[in-house]
């Protein structure tokens, strides 16, 4: 039983960064913007979180730094694609390339240093409950943020007027603009929300998952988060499911390596990436369904004509 609980806990820890990054990107894409810079924003959040935590000795400051840096970094993308109407795919790629380079440069001095870890929640009695105690009341704070984000975003998108407006912008920015909605302003906010989430996801990696700084420590998780958004058909609750499936794959291959299964570790390590491809194939097969779900103006530049 203890074994099961500990495996479930590690799955939750592996799923959390994917979940947060994906939920942020979901909001961005719902507003009609495709930001391929998730990996770059995440790795910037990771280095900022580690650095701030290490320098101040407080992982909480690290957490805030990760969020702020993620949001600021996404602002760069927002200015380029929204104010200068650059190609979103290319700009997102360059955000990732710049993020990987910048984080590597900023983190040179942090390599090999022990980092600060965010403490797990502890509520007397509740956390000590058998089995469910640790799962429900004994995880790291970002886990609870991630769950709150899923339901918060779901409520925001489908139950509030602002959420409806955001979705309408994603489906047709020209109509939204004609109705007098400030398309660019909404998109700025959405992109920065996505950046803050990606930063937080990166912070989770360097403040909880493995409290240290390793270059490129995101290891493609930002890209997997992007795939999760497609997998979820742009629905928050499905992102939750998808992130935990991927968390399970990620942990499963690690456990398989630890148990010494006679398969080369490299093949097991490539499983999450192969699983991403398989999942994308399954979900995209139905062309009409995909077209119905995709925000209609996703990835298109918008220049308001007065």
């Amino acid at each position, binding site marked *: 039983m203890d074994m099961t609980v500990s495996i479930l806990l590690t799955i939750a820890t592996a799923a959390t960064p994917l979940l947060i990054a994906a939920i942020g990107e979901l909001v961005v894409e719902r507003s009609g913007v495709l930001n391929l810079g998730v990996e770059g924003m995440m790795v910037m959040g990771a280095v900022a979180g580690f650095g701030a935590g290490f320098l101040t000795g407080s992982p909480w400051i690290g957490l805030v730094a990760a969020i702020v840096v993620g949001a600021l970094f996404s602002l760069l993308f927002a200015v380029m694609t929204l104010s200068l109407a650059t190609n979103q795919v290319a700009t997102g790629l360059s955000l990732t390339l710049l993020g990987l380079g910048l984080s590597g440069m900023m983190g040179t001095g942090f390599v090999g240093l022990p980092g600060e870890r965010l403490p797990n929640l502890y509520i007397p009695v509740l956390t000590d409950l058998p089995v469910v105690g640790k799962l429900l009341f004994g995880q790291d704070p970002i886990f609870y943020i991630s769950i709150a984000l899923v339901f918060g975003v779901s409520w925001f998108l489908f139950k509030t007027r602002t959420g409806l407006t955001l979705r309408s912008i994603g489906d047709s920015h020209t109509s939204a603009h004609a109705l007098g909605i400030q398309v660019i302003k909404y998109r700025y906010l959405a992109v920065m929300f996505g950046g803050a989430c990606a930063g937080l996801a990166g912070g989770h990696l360097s403040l909880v998952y493995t409290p240290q700084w390793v270059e490129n420590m995101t290891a493609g998780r930002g890209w997997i988060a992007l795939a999760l958004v497609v997998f979820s058909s742009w629905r928050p609750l499905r992102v939750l499911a998808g992130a935990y499936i991927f968390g399970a794959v990620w942990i499963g291959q690690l456990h398989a390596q630890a148990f010494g299964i006679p398969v080369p570790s490299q093949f097991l390590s490539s499983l999450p990436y192969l699983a991403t491809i398989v999942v*994308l194939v399954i979900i995209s097969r139905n062309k009409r369904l995909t077209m119905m779900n995709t925000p209609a103006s996703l990835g298109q530049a918008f*220049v308001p004509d007065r």
Partner: protein
Amino acid sequence: MRLELVKRPQRSMLFSALSPFIAFALTVVAGAILFALLGINPLTAFYTYFISPITEVWQLHELAIKAAPLILIAVGLSVCFRSNIWNIGAEGQFVFGAIVGSVVPVLYPEMQGPFVLPLMLLMGMVGGAVYAAIPAFLKTRFNTNEILTSLMLVYVAQLFLDWLVRGPWRDPKGFNFPQTVQFNPSAVLPELMPMSGRANLGFVFALVAAVLVWILMSRMLKGFEIRVLGSSPRAGRFAGFSFNRMVFFAFMLSGALAGLAGISEVSGAIGQLQPSISPGYGFTAIIVAFLGRLNPLGIVAAGLVLGLTYLGGEAAQSVLGISDKVARVFQGMLLFFVLGCDTLIHYRIRLVGLAPAPKLDASPKLEEAN
């Protein structure tokens, strides 16, 4: 204050030609600020980074070695990007091409003779093309997003290479180092001018590929087809061009060139397979393609510039004592500025006050449009 874009009646030829240069100048300025923040004299840094790596002849050879794979890959990518196909897995195709091309020298080292090298190069190209055909197949058959699939395959290819050089392909006499046997002389790409430096035939491949693709894109029907389908798939369909065939063509051409770059790098600059054979050439080539304005001839120049950033990064590390990651920062900034400057080709940028712009200036704009 905010920015406002005003569409130009037609694309500006001036900015079309100038934008790469403006972008490069802006990168240098931003770099100077970055160095100043790090407490390094920007002029010293500029000299170390951009001038010192190309002051001697052997250094020019090193530049050719770095630029060759960038140009080869970017030329292929330009075809993809022109056709609005986003192959960003060139790094994986590079690695896979290197692996397939190395089958002969690693597994059959006794095979020697003048036919070995052409065979390796051919196999490398086939390897890269086949690997690139996977995302093309998934896109055309299952409608899968090629950005994500081609990128995921990069990780898979790297892990596959890692397994090979640590496992079945490891040199038994290599003191357990994760590397294959050294390629025998007939499997090594010849150097161009061995008297003055290390530059090898790979640079010639890059130039030839650039010219051939330039001819293909600007002088042949296939290139026209690609450009039409890229700018308007609907118009392309009416003209009877097949979208799916074009996806395969673009992917496999760029994959073949990336594979050729991979096997050339391994057989020329490195001489054996090892866990890491590329400092991110496949990704940097994306920048090269855009800096070269997706034009094969522009890409040759852009490849030299980006090759220089690698050498500059190494020089900055050894002389100024800062991380060679600074090269990646430069590359990322450069792409940002290129994309930003490209906006100037299609739009005029205006600064407007916070208040909504008065209706008055609508009339002069109308005249401009006419």
